[in-house]
């Protein structure tokens, strides 16, 4: 194993769906000798690309779960996480970005920067991930890497610079010109594995010189040495240029742009050279951990293999080898047989087997060190858990996990399906923090919730395929919330004396909106009017009430309940009496506190030819959407809007028919907002009817 951290690259490959990143990964594995034959994503040989290890992924030609793998390029060890492109799976992207040091942003040379690229770029910015761009599919009709580079500047506000020029485009793509070395690079051999370096074609020399000059002018901002060398004139050492580009890339002030066609085996090796030269090694990046012994104070991890172990479990998988936990090591060394400590559960676990993963194949190893991404066997944990050696107690910074916004009921068809479904849900909820499941106590149905229609769809498919759990699916339901908009007092007495021991408890106080969180309980009792032992009972009673609001049965959030008065009876008061008193008090206060129903609002971005702008906006308007703005990108118009999720079901079909299939959209959760009066009344009526019918 390579121990020199300068020679390790932990990278992600992120991009818009269908920009060809899985094909690119496949080629990288081929050129780094990890695989010995190439299989296309939707290839006729039926094998599918190496990284799409799940059956469903192979069938749909999209990547759902990130598969981790590693390879070696020249003297560098590269750990690659292939990440999904659809916005519904962005938690996978975010988790990958959390543990990676750098990323390759793959773009289609025809489609350019699309809305999903914007989301992925925003995520990379959130985690300060230095990136290089690869403009793929330069062999396609309409390919224009220059336009894509300009879009990187305009749409993503990246200081993007082409380090190459294409030699020919579309069908005529034969190679690229390296603007740093000023040489033409061609891929020969059946699979482009032979690199031929030649002089720049005479008809492109002038253009190449001009582009190089512009490149050097900007890149020299990052290196005084390079600036001096340029001013002195004469030949410039390519190493000076590489160093300046690396500095700019690491500081996120520069995005080098490579280009080629993974499918046609062009330009992939040069991209690997770029990963080696410009993306950070683990010691280039400062990762922070939280000291759990010191009030969660942040401290930087050391990357030192001699220091106590800190590693983060960022992904769980239930594969043919049993449960696999993918971990990134931040400091220390882990050996086979070592005992590690889970900071969240406080449990010690022994590491039996340790391996490096190559998509769904594995290679057993004896130890791993700082900066490594490896998989552990048979470790019981949840995604996001931190493992350490026993002598320290810390946690890696928590990840940004969005709340699920859509849910639906799943009903197993028979008893066998019921058992298999439980197994599947247990696994999925551990693997994916944005996927949740619970049993609705009133209907007895199992409800699953997640980030979008496709997100849930994929899990239902996986249940059927991987766990043989046949389920019927209910209609999707939006996750409504209730909250209060005003302050209201309550004073409720729970009294029951119908034989046997009685029940007595009086709870007085007020409720008010609470913006800092979902719920707060305030104990303002003085003089012991409610005995201390019954204060938690009141809290419990309020919390029970919050589970189902009185308007439409949605959970109540953003509320503060304070008690400042009450009464107890020396014989008849009990825990349950005060819980019931609090539930009564809640009901009394809630309706007076002007409750409202809130619904999830999605940020929707529709991108399509400008001629359809009116139709797109009309469709958003009809869906109670609020148009934030429109911008024009050449022949395309991008419409940004906020639309209630409940109105977005089936939107892809509507959009397709409105725009002859030429527009596409992405959406992500934005916020919760009160529903309009008409919708609110309808929801209340529906809830009342449901309650009446039992």
């Amino acid at each position, binding site marked *: 194993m390579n121990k020199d951290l300068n020679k390790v690259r932990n990278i992600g490959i992120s991009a818009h769906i269908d920009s060809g990143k899985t094909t690119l990964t496949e080629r990288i594995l081929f050129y780094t000798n990890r695989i010995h034959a190439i299989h296309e994503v939707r290839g006729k040989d039926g094998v599918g690309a190496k990284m799409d290890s799940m059956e469903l992924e192979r069938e749909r030609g999209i990547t759902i779960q990130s598969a981790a793998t590693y390879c070696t390029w020249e003297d560098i060890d590269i750990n690659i996480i292939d990440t999904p492109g659809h916005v519904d799976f962005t938690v996978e992207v975010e988790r990958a970005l959390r543990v990676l040091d750098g990323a390759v942003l793959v773009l289609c040379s025809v489609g350019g920067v699309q809305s999903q690229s914007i989301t992925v770029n925003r995520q990379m910015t959130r985690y300060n991930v230095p990136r290089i761009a690869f403009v793929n599919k330069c062999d396609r009709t309409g390919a224009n890497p220059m336009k894509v580079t300009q879009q990187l500047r305009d749409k993503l506000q990246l200081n993007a610079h082409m380090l190459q020029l294409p030699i020919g485009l579309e069908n005529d793509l034969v190679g690229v010109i390296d603007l740093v070395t000023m040489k033409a690079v061609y891929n020969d051999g059946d699979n482009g594995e032979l690199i031929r370096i030649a002089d720049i074609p005479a008809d492109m020399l002038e253009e190449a010189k001009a582009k190089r000059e512009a490149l050097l002018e900007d890149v020299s901002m990052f290196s005084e040495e390079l600036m001096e060398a340029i001013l002195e004139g004469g030949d410039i050492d390519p190493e000076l240029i590489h160093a300046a580009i690396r500095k700019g890339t690491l500081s996120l002030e520069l995005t080098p742009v490579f280009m080629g066609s993974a499918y046609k085996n062009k330009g992939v090796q040069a991209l690997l050279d770029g990963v080696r030269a410009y993306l950070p090694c683990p010691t280039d990046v400062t990762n922070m951990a939280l000291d759990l012994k010191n009030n969660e104070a942040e401290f930087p991890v050391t990357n030192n293999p001699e220091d106590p172990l800190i590693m983060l479990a960022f992904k769980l998988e239930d594969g043919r080898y049993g449960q696999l936990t993918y971990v990134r090591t931040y400091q220390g060394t882990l050996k086979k047989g070592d005992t590690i400590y889970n900071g969240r559960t406080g449990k010690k676990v022994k590491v039996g087997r340790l391996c490096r993963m190559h998509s769904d194949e594995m290679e057993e190893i004896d130890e791993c060190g700082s900066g490594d991404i490896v998989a552990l066997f048979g470790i019981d944990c949840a995604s996001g858990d931190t493992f350490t050696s026993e002598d320290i107690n810390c946690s890696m910074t928590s990840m940004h996990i969005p709340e699920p916004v859509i849910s639906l009921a799943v009903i197993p068809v028979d008893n066998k399906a019921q058992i298999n479904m439980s197994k599947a849900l247990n696994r999925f909820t551990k693997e994916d923090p944005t996927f949740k499941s619970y049993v609705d106590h009133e209907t007895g149905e199992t409800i699953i919730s997640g980030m979008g229609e496709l997100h849930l769809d994929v899990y239902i498919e996986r249940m059927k395929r991987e766990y043989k759990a046949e389920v019927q699916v209910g209609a999707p339901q939006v996750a409504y919330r209730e909250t209060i908009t005003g302050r209201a007092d309550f004073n409720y007495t729970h009294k029951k004396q119908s034989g046997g021991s009685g029940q007595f408890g009086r709870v007085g106080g007020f409720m008010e909106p609470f913006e800092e969180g979902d719920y707060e309980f305030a104990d303002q009792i003085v003089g012991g009017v409610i005995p201390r032992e019954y204060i938690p009972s009141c809290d419990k009673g309020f919390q029970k009430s919050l589970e189902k609001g009185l308007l439409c049965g949605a959970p109540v959030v953003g509320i503060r309940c304070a008690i400042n008065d009450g009464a107890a009876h020396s014989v008849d008061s009990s825990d349950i009496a005060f819980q019931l008193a609090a539930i009564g008090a809640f009901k009394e206060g809630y309706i007076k506190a002007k409750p409202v129903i809130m619904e999830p609002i999605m940020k929707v971005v529709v991108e399509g030819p400008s001629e359809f702008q009116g139709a797109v906006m009309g469709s958003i308007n009809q869906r109670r959407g609020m148009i934030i703005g429109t911008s024009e990108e050449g022949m395309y118009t991008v419409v940004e809007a906020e639309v209630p999720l409940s109105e977005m079901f089936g939107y892809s079909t509507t959009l397709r028919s409105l725009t002859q299939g030429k527009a596409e959209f992405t959406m992500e959760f934005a916020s919760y*907002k009160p529903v309009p009066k008409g919708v609110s009344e309808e929801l209340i009526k529906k809830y009342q009817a449901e309650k009446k019918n039992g």
Partner: protein
Amino acid sequence: MEATQNTENPLHALNINQTMGLVMARAGLGKTAILVQLALDCMLMGNKVLHVSIGETVDKAKSWYDDILSLLSDGEKVSQIPEIMRNRMIMTFKETGFSGIKLEERLKDLIEQDIFQPRCMIIDGYDFADNGRDALVELRDVLNRLGLRQVWFSAVCHRDDGRQSALGVPSPCHDVDDIFNTVLLINPAGDTMRLDVLKCDIQGVKPGALLTLDPSTMLIQKTA
């Protein structure tokens, strides 16, 4: 203060029907902040506003509204008044891609389908130095055709360019000031930030009237 004879809110006095207004200042002094206040004033009265931002992103323009509204509402969450934002739409153009005809093309569709019928328009980032008088006249005609009642432009003036019109309107707008009904100039004077009324055709507001701005927030000050 003369500019606010009939109302406590100086914005109402300036923001009346049939205005073609201009806010000028040197770079970075807060023209957009003034335009956004004029837009919000219109929105709060229930009118639709189209904010045309040239050379900026939708997010950037949106954040101006969020920030100013947050200042005006004293830190209260903007999301609590989402209905006001329904009165606003942002349209962005590239510096090279903006013209009256282009604007008409993009807006006509929305007006005809009754998706968005703006009463007021903000045009932020229009390049007066590169676009001549003819282009501005054409733009004015388009705005009239589209039925806009109030239009506000921003323009950057430069300290080292001393040219100005008889009314004191600085370059690059010195020779097009007749096209505008109202011209305001942000004028930093010592510790205070002034908003000078260089030209105003509105009855009751005389040229030479002064408004003051809070230098930390760029909010137009309420009259006593």
